[in-house]
């Protein structure tokens, strides 16, 4: 029997040398008599292990972590994986980082060639779609409602409300748009999912189309993801060839197809309305709401917009049933969330957990503490617009409402850890800088406010008239939060205020002019 060797084709793994490793293995196989085949899978999302080479055996898949090309020849002894090799981590499924997770959305990630439709099917793919085919549109929306699924892009809006709105819209032309403009620093779940399991996204969009009556879908992918673009492009071709997409995609002669549209490097185009503008070929300028896109969205038509993770989760919601999905989680935060752990941690990567785990447990049990070995001092959760939280708040459960109570947010699930060398005052300034760099320029609070924010924080950090300037900064935060047109300007004050509240000494110098911590 031909042995299967898996080497991820994931952007993260490849940045750590996976391509060279794969080439080395191919070269080794070519000159040895080993009857094996290399499969370029997606990543399992345990980045501390990458490049993670897996070899399928009758006992399961053995893993070799952080493999370098020169080690490749030594991974096999007499044609079988060398379990005593120093980089062998045993059965991959038993790796604690993975084993402790509750993988629903990322259950298939890393198991297979992402473009292998048969493998997708064999690993539970299309179960959700099959179930959806047995339901009416209204019943599908009911399943979504029962699941309690909320938008995973950051706003956590109840998905079923959007679905119902689009379903109820009388327009014969409707759209489903997947937002894959994953711009938050410290986030990578959308990319990893597309690179590892693109059919899940396609399946989720198909279910959404069946439920809402949409005939055309769009995926808006950020230009910084060339590999994801490549994988998704091929996946769409494969899906069309297999009839999954196309003239009879939704059954009963109902067509559905998906177009891939690329961004052009603008963060604010991840904001849903400016994303629509961008797809329409216009400048990425935020639209006012209402009308919400579900009523008047792409090309003025009712449009269901979801993040990659939300649409992917739909396959689980339908496959296992809304109630089964809702069984995970806590409070109003139901199901699982693929957190993305990064920054100064020992083990970064995807950590999919039911809502409710504590920040600390994620940092310790999965992250394994800081990478630098120094004490962790702060985490920023929810991307560049998320709050910086001090250790005293790390017992807060990962739950939308619990975070809101601390003027923080889960956002798209990015968790970035900092050790005690961090200059959090600089981070405050960075928050404003980020906003200034990414502002679309439409509304005044964001367009001018962010620039003034950078300047005021700089003055504060220099110790210039700190009392007046801190008061001005607080007023500015209020103006931006209350007055901005979209979440970019509206949320930029969140990290700044969290720093003013939790790390004031980092921002405001003491009398002697030195920053205190």
């Amino acid at each position, binding site marked *: 029997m031909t042995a299967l060797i898996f080497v991820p084709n994931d952007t993260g793994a490849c940045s750590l040398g996976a391509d060279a490793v794969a080439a080395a293995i191919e070269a080794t196989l070519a000159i040895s008599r080993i009857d094996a085949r290399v499969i370029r899978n997606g990543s399992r999302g345990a980045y501390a292990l990458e490049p993670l080479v897996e070899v399928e055996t009758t006992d399961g898949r053995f893993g070799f972590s952080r493999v370098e090309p020169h080690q490749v020849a030594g991974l096999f002894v007499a044609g079988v994986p060398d379990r005593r090799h120093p980089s062998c981590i045993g059965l991959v499924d038993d790796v604690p980082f993975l084993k402790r997770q509750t993988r629903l959305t990322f259950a298939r990630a890393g198991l297979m060639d992402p473009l292998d439709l048969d493998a997708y099917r064999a690993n539970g793919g299309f179960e959700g779609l099959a179930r959806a085919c047995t339901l009416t549109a209204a019943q599908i929306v009911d399943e979504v409602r029962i699941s309690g699924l909320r938008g995973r892009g950051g706003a956590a809006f109840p998905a079923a409300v959007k679905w119902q709105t689009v379903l109820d819209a009388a327009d014969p032309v409707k759209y489903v748009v997947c937002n894959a403009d994953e711009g938050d620093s410290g986030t990578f779940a959308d990319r990893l999912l597309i690179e590892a399991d693109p059919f899940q996204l396609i399946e989720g969009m198909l279910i959404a189309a069946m439920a809402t009556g949409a005939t055309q879908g769009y995926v808006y992918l950020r230009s910084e993801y060339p590999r994801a673009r490549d994988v998704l492009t091929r996946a769409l071709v494969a899906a069309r060839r297999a009839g999954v997409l196309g003239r009879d995609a939704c059954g009963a002669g109902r067509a559905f197809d998906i177009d891939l549209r690329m961004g052009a490097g603008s963060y604010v185009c991840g904001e849903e309305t400016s994303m629509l503008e961008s797809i329409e070929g216009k400048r990425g300028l935020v639209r006012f709401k209402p009308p919400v896109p579900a009523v008047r969205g792409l090309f003025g038509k009712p449009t269901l917009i979801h993040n990659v993770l939300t649409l992917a989760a739909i396959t689980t919601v339908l496959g296992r049933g809304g109630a089964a999905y809702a069984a995970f989680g806590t409070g109003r935060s139901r199901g699982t969330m693929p957190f993305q752990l990064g920054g100064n941690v020992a083990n970064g990567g995807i950590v999919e957990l039911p809502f409710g785990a504590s920040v600390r447990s994620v940092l310790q049990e999965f992250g394994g503490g800081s990478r630098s070995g120094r004490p962790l001092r702060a985490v920023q959760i929810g991307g560049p617009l998320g709050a910086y939280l001090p250790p005293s708040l790390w017992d807060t459960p990962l739950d939308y409402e619990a975070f809101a109570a601390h003027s923080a947010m889960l956002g798209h699930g990015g968790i970035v850890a900092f050790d005690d060398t961090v200059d959090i005052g600089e981070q405050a300034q960075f928050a404003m800088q980020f906003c200034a760099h990414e*502002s679309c320029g439409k*509304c005044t609070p964001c367009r001018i406010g962010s620039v003034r924010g950078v300047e005021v924080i700089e003055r504060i950090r220099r110790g210039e008239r700190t009392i007046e300037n801190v008061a001005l900064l607080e007023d500015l935060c209020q103006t931006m939060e209350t007055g901005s047109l979209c979440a970019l300007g509206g949320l930029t004050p969140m990290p700044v205020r969290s720093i003013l509240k939790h790390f004031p000494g980092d921002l405001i110098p003491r009398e002697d002019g030195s920053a205190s911590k």
Partner: protein
Amino acid sequence: MSAVDHVHRDLGTPGSETDRSVCLTIDGIAVEAAEGTSVLRAALAAGIGIPKLCATDSLEPFGSCRVCLVEIQGRKGTPASCTTPVEAGMVVRTQTETLARVRKGVLELYISDHPLDCLTCAANGDCELQDVAGEVGLREVRYGMAGANHLAEPKDVSNPYLSFDPSKCIVCSRCVRACEETQGTFALTVAGRGFDSAIVASAADPFIDSECVSCGACVQACPTATLIDKSVVEHGQPDRVVKTTCAYCGVGCSLNAELKGDQLIRMEPDADGGANHGHACVKGRFAWGYATHRDRVLKPQVRERIDEPWREVSWDEAIDFAAQRFRAITDRYGRHAIGGISSSRCTNEEVFVVQKMVRAAFGNNNIDTCARVCHSPTGYGLKQTFGTSAGTQDFQSVDHADVVMVIGANPTDAHPVFASRLKRRLREGAQLIVADPRRIDLVRSAHVEASHHLQLRPGTNVALINALAHVVVTEGLVDEAFVDERCERESFERWRTFIAAQDHSPETAETFTGVPADELRLAARLYAGARNATIYYGLGVTEHSQGSTMVMGLANLAMATGHIGRDGVGVNPLRGQNNVQGACDMGSFPHELSGYRHISDDGVRGSFETRWHVHLDANPGLRIPNMLSQAIGGEFRGLFIQGEDLAQSDPNTQHVADALRSLDCLVVQDLFHNETSEFAHVFLPGTSFLEKDGTFTNAERRINRVRPVMAAKAGLSEWEAVSRLATAMGYPMHYDNAAQIMDEIAELTPTFRGVSFAKLDREGGMQWPVSDAASLGTRILHEDHFVRGKGEFILTRYVPTDERSNRRYPLLLTTGRILSQYNVGTQTRRTANIAWHARDVLEIHPHDAELRGIVDGDVVLLSSRKGSTTLAAHVTDRVTEGVVYTTFHHPGTAANVVTTENSDWATNCPEYKVTAVEVRPTNEPLGRDD
């Protein structure tokens, strides 16, 4: 604006069209507003103030400034009132502590990137930023002025009328949106993003070199001094307003002349203007400087012989001089030896007194009008088929059209304000068919593309329209119900048989027109199959030997498909001059009294005789071409010309000059000396539209008031001078004011019943017919039945023009207008508009150019069998092979040196649009220019 008491109050967002209303509470006050109205508009209309910057009611809401935020009970946050529609039971608060803080915070941000030079700023007193800063109580800018800013950005003053100062820009995008929504040119955009967002014209070009068409909508929309009239920069804010009507094209825009003393500072289009709804173009808004140009003749002048110099005289002397000469002619040659020509540039009242003078004082019907050379076929053709010599719709009607056919018209250049409305409708999804020998801008421009461009050979209009009708008839696309109910069945059946014949098929037509038969069929189906399809046409239809036939062909097509008598349909002439419609209405034709009633009709004539206390000749008088030929023949010897440069604008210049030279007395009433006054014996100074008191009637039959912005510069109004001349001729004619003339018109003309200056001042412009039943006028004609009773189908056989290309003259010349210039340029050449069109050019296809060794910019000799002139060549594929095109705005071009004496068989409208010519490179200098 605060300095001038504006008639129009800006309610922030456009009104809603529905008549359903909802009740809500704003600041404790119960407010009723139309469904779909914004909270902002509802509040402002109710007198509740909400500060705003990016919102203005001519543009869709944008929601960028974040100043008009409100709080709404039961809703999160502080929604912008401009983007939030009213809902029943909504409880809105516009003034809370949170709102006050955020508004002040936003203004503080604005001002942190704005020069603090209010006292010396041109917008001082007319600056919304200044006003709002005051409203919200901004007292300090705590950020200081040392941060990042745009204060050093350089001004762009390249445009002659407006300056662009980016340092004062608040990036509200009102200019960009006005350029898109109002004007439809898409010249302005925002470049960069975030703090670097900057307004740029085209690809950051200087305004003068950009795609900007200087309509001024951006200037009007700008809330600060960023985009501002240079005249305001120079003179300061105006302090009074006179509402009047533009005197350029037949759109007839309502304008607010804003003055300081009698210094006109700027023209702002009137938001309530029925024709233009707050929009204007580069001519109407900016090109009024000719009115005070040093070339204006302000004193009457006389001379015994045309080779003598002019002598300035008093009004009395000039009028006596003219009267004596005219009397001497009639004494010797009889009363038919003199006549008059009225001008489509003058008011209804001025025209009316001229034709009255001719009929009552001269004692003949030798009255014609310059409309003879433009839209006389419209009057004839539409009267024959529908019963009324006028377009069927108002401009607004195009908002309901699903298919628009533009034939022989170039609205973006010649009728720009209507073009903007049309383009908006096209952007909303209406489809466009263009029939024109030339690829006009409408065929393909920003966000507009014609579904079909029927690029026909000049002179083959009738073949084209017959082919379209043939498809309708032979493919079962006739609206039988409409024809049954509304049209003369017999005439229809005759026409149906006629048009169904194979010689009207698209395949046959293709051989004449050069338009592929398939394209003709598709266009016909599109027009016929539309829910609402409408036709707009211009001089490309009328100025042909078959001009009247073509107008009737259009009418036939509209009737056969039922596209008549409601919103969104109709047959609409785009009138070239401000008062072509009015001049025709006023009885300027030799055979017609006012309201298109034949002079031979005893009852009608009798009513005039009674009112005027004079006997009128029952026989029609001479048309312009007859006057000219009889002048050469010696029977016709005296002519009064009101405001028309016959020698330049009429065809076959040499023939016209010979005729004028033959006259014993030529009286010219005009603003400037011109080609015609070269042959005159008396020059009576005219009044510019800024000095006139009266009415213009635009292409939609709308009678609009023209009000004097300043006193008549030469001391007398034109109607006064004419009245005095008539009196001096022995027929006492006296009016205390122009209003009395309109009263007389209304009394004598059924379609003007009840019209008076007082009523127009009270109700605004109104479209004739005005009657007891329709006391505010009639938007759409022929709604229930045709004015003539049943619609008449008239057979329209295609007869090729005699003017054909041959070996000697292998090309066909056609003519047109450019946006910045107007007709023969008398006015526009005396304004800064000259910046855009310093000379006329001859457009020639690259293939034809190459055959003749002509490259772009070469001076070429353009010759016809009538004459020749020189022009600069512009090599372009806008024209097809075999066709050349020129504008005629500069006298030096002398385009009419080459045009022929061919004319419309019915009305003698000259065939300007087809002349067989040859083009050769030449070493001769460019045509004379003044």
